[in-house]
């Protein structure tokens, strides 16, 4: 579905990505974890065609949608308008099915997107991404600034979408624990390079990931 080979991206003199290879297969849930500035968002931007690549190949079979970091809605437009604009690339612009999946949005449909809470905005952002009928949905830092319970709800929705509709997910997260617990496979990005990859469960157990990203050895689960 998505095949990235040896991707390199430069920002002027700085190397943002260096020989990154990554894949997402149909229906898979893949996590991309790493610290701030590791290049995770750059990777997504490259996949979306926003930044130019210096080297490497990107192949995307099927439709791709990118839910950016920080929601990035159109604040003066209504929730309904934000959703409809997500369908710019496709022909069906009716958001009715989004309101079914995310009923809370139906209540908010006429409100200015800028006036919503963080969790609600994230929901709109995900809904907007879904409107493009993607086969792969990438979400950048979904949990940032959101209360854990909201994050749980959103995560549950995404899992349902994955199991019921076969929507592949690429979750980019600083919060490694969340991403690894939701996904099948994961890549760890550090200063533009993939330093670890494999099954999520294995990575959760790896001491290297533990120390760097999980804040110390796992204690007995709460």
């Amino acid at each position: 579905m998505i095949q990235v080979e040896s991707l390199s991206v430069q920002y002027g003199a700085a190397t943002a990505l260096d020989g990154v290879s990554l894949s997402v297969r149909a229906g898979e849930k893949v996590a991309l974890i790493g610290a701030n500035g590791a290049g995770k968002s750059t990777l997504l931007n490259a996949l979306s065609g926003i930044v130019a690549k210096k080297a490497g190949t990107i192949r995307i079979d099927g439709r791709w949608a990118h839910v950016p970091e920080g929601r990035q809605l159109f604040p003066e437009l209504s929730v309904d308008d934000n959703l409809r604009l997500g369908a710019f690339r496709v022909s069906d612009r009716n958001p009715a099915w989004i309101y079914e999946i995310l009923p809370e949005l139906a209540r908010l449909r006429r409100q200015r997107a800028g006036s919503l809470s963080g969790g609600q905005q994230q929901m709109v952002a995900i809904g907007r991404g879904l409107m493009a009928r993607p086969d792969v949905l990438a979400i950048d830092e979904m949990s940032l600034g959101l209360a854990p319970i909201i994050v749980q709800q959103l995560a549950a929705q995404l899992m349902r979408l994955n199991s019921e509709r076969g929507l592949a997910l690429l979750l980019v997260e600083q919060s490694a624990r969340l991403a690894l617990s939701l996904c099948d496979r994961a890549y760890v990005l550090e200063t533009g390079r993939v330093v670890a990859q494999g099954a999520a469960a294995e990575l959760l157990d790896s001491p290297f990931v533990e120390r760097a990203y999980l804040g110390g050895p796992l204690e007995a689960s709460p």
Partner: protein
Amino acid sequence: MTRVQAGPWAVAILAGVAMAAATVLDESALSVYVLLALTASVTVGVTLLMGHAGQVSLGHGAFYAAGAYAAGLLAKHGFPSWIALLVAPIAAAGLAAAVGIPLLVLRGHHLAFATLALHLIFLSLISELSITGGDVGLQAIPPLSFAGVTLSSVRSYAYLSAGALVLVVVLARNLLVSRPGRALRALSSSEVAAASSGVAVGYYKLAVFALSAGFAGLAGGIYAFYMGYLAPGSFPVMLSIEYIVMAAVGGLGKVSGAVAGSALVFLLVHGLSRVSTLSGMPGTAPIILSYAVYAVLLVSAVLFLPGGLVALLLSRWERPSPRSQRPAPPPSEAKPSDPATEGVTSKHGSFS
């Protein structure tokens, strides 16, 4: 854009060439020379403003006019002409400081508009006030005289304006290599960064604004004595735009570029208007050609040669240096909050 200017020997060469030209050229060439030197003096100020303080000034002609009128008015009201000439840059700088305090709160295009408004309001004022002679302007301004020597020949004004240009260039260069100057250059790449490192941003912006106005005022003062008469029609808005074209062609922020750009554009336009006044050409040919030249040069410079002509020429002469001046992905495309792009310098900094 923040490369240090050419060394002091460049200034010496400029002075030498300028004085030699003033000595050698004939009368008709000298009249072009005087105006060119005066224009270049103003352009140096404009390029400092645009290249380092990041302010587009669509109204620098107003300071040129202010200097001219100040000198002319004082001379006509009995003040010694050399005092009038000294007052000219001070008056212009004072005007700039006075309007700059409220105006420099504005940024980017708002400031650009404000400078245009400034020029228009100034023109409106001098056209209305009787003291400035209204639409007719000031006539019969006595020529410059100092210690019994009267400057009446074109050649004498050529020396004077060349001297003023050299003075302006020296002052501009000294500003840029001084501590405040380095602060200025920090300003041009990112106002936010400069402010957070303790640079008194507002103060420096005002200082550059006033200084560049002073340069224009000095040139204007000389102009008043050289021409002997002033009218609002001598200072149209187009004049301000000409300075911008010359600064852009020479490379914004480069003092040497300002001089080179002024010379290039001025002589080009002058040459073309000579051609276009030949018999057979319609009467409007001169304006058409000059507008077309200004426009093409301006757009080309701003879109394709941000370093200006000087950079282009230098790159041919020197060994090819790494030309990676502009960051690869346009900063406007990167997300504003993306920490990965923090290191990217952006000209957006001073243009929010």
